[in-house]
């Protein structure tokens, strides 16, 4: 079993739709949760960063962490074609030096 599971998609939705991206994980020691966005042939860029359970909102993006279920989500409201990218979840354990990435979900927003 992988430490972090993420559906690779592809996921295709119309412009303006609400998008939900998800990851599950197996190790309850994960405490920091990140979402990276990666455009084609580019490096990942940090989009959202959360610690422990709860919600964090930044503009059209909301990151949600449910530690009891070992489940994290990224919601994109009013999705735009410029949101088309691969979204990677990344988790890290307190005291560890290595991020554990999900496989990434390829998202396409259709005009």
């Amino acid at each position, binding site marked *: 079993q992988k430490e972090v599971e993420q559906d690779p998609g592809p996921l295709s939705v119309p412009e303006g739709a609400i998008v939900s991206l998800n990851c599950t994980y197996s190790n309850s020691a994960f405490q920091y949760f990140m979402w990276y966005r990666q455009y084609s042939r580019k*490096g990942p860029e*940090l989009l959202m*960063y959360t*610690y422990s359970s709860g919600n964090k909102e930044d503009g059209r993006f909301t990151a949600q962490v449910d530690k009891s279920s070992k489940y994290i989500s990224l919601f994109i409201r009013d999705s735009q074609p410029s949101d088309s990218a691969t979204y990677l979840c990344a988790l*890290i354990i307190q005291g560890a030096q290595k991020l554990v990435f999900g*496989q990434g979900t390829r998202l396409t927003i259709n005009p």
Partner: protein
Amino acid sequence: DAMVIQNPRYQVTQFGKPVTLSCSQTLNHNVMYWYQQKSSQAPKLLFHYYDKDFNNEADTPDNFQSRRPNTSFCFLDIRSPGLGDAAMYLCATSRDVGAGEKLFFGSGTQLSVL
């Protein structure tokens, strides 16, 4: 302004011919990482430097080496590239190590092996 710069963006090499990828940073971060990312896969950490201290991942092949001559620069050397080494190579930096640190990635070097 680019903060983590990788050169070249695209590199083509021949099977078995040594190749070097470079990374520079303007953030003055202590830590520099090299990741390998194959198509539709998660980035895989190869190794990282904390200042001058080299930290190799247990499953990184000996074919991969790294050098960090100063704070700003880090190099990835592939001594004898195989077809399976074709991938995107990502350099990243962070101010320090630890769970609270954020990574900043470069745009990557896409390596092709012929």
